[in-house]
């Protein structure tokens, strides 16, 4: 089993990155790999509660993060500095996450076999 880390750094709807990341995470989980998701920079916006995409004609994929648990994807990490820079707290997020400092995140990243960026 390899350690896969998915690093999400983009807001949810301006580009296809956030949705594509979710797709690849689900595929990787199917192969019984050790999967971690990391949310940094504008990637933290992917997890914000209260997303309503009815007006823009795009599927609201934020609810999918809640389904990850069902695929045994339970390691979700958010960088404290990225949250703070955007006036967000853990309570603003749609799922339970572990909030890490930049230094802790750097250590976690260094432990991975594969890092995929979105």
């Amino acid at each position, binding site marked *: 089993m390899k350690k896969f880390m998915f*690093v999400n*750094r983009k807001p949810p709807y301006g580009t296809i*990155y956030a949705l594509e990341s979710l797709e690849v995470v689900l595929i990787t989980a199917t192969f019984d790999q050790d999967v971690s998701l990391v949310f*940094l*920079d504008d990637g933290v916006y992917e997890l914000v509660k209260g997303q309503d995409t009815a007006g823009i004609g795009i599927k609201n994929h934020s609810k999918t993060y809640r389904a990850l648990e069902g695929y045994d994807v339970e390691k979700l990490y958010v*960088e404290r*500095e990225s949250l703070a820079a955007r006036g967000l707290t853990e309570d603003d997020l749609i799922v339970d996450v572990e909030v890490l400092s*930049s230094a802790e*995140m*750097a*250590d976690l*990243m*260094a432990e*991975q*076999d*594969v*890092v995929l*960026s*979105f």
Partner: protein
Amino acid sequence: MLHIVNKSPALTRSLESCVRLSRPGQSLLLIEDGIYAATSADTVASLKHLKLYVLQPDVEARGMKGRIVEGVAAVDYAGFVDLVAEHSSNQSWL
């Protein structure tokens, strides 16, 4: 770990995030528009905890050959492959 940055630091914060989430002794390869970071002495100084490389074909393509800060290592495509092979993992800061 090998970090790879391909955007100008004036355009995105990729380099800034890379620096924040890197550890001393790791490597950073600047490619494509990322090479502009290596033309600023201040920026290069802020990267001194990392082993710094630039991809020479991208430097030359942008006319920056004479502007890269002294001491920054240049690699060609084969060197890029070597760097990837030498490191156990890599992270592209897209």
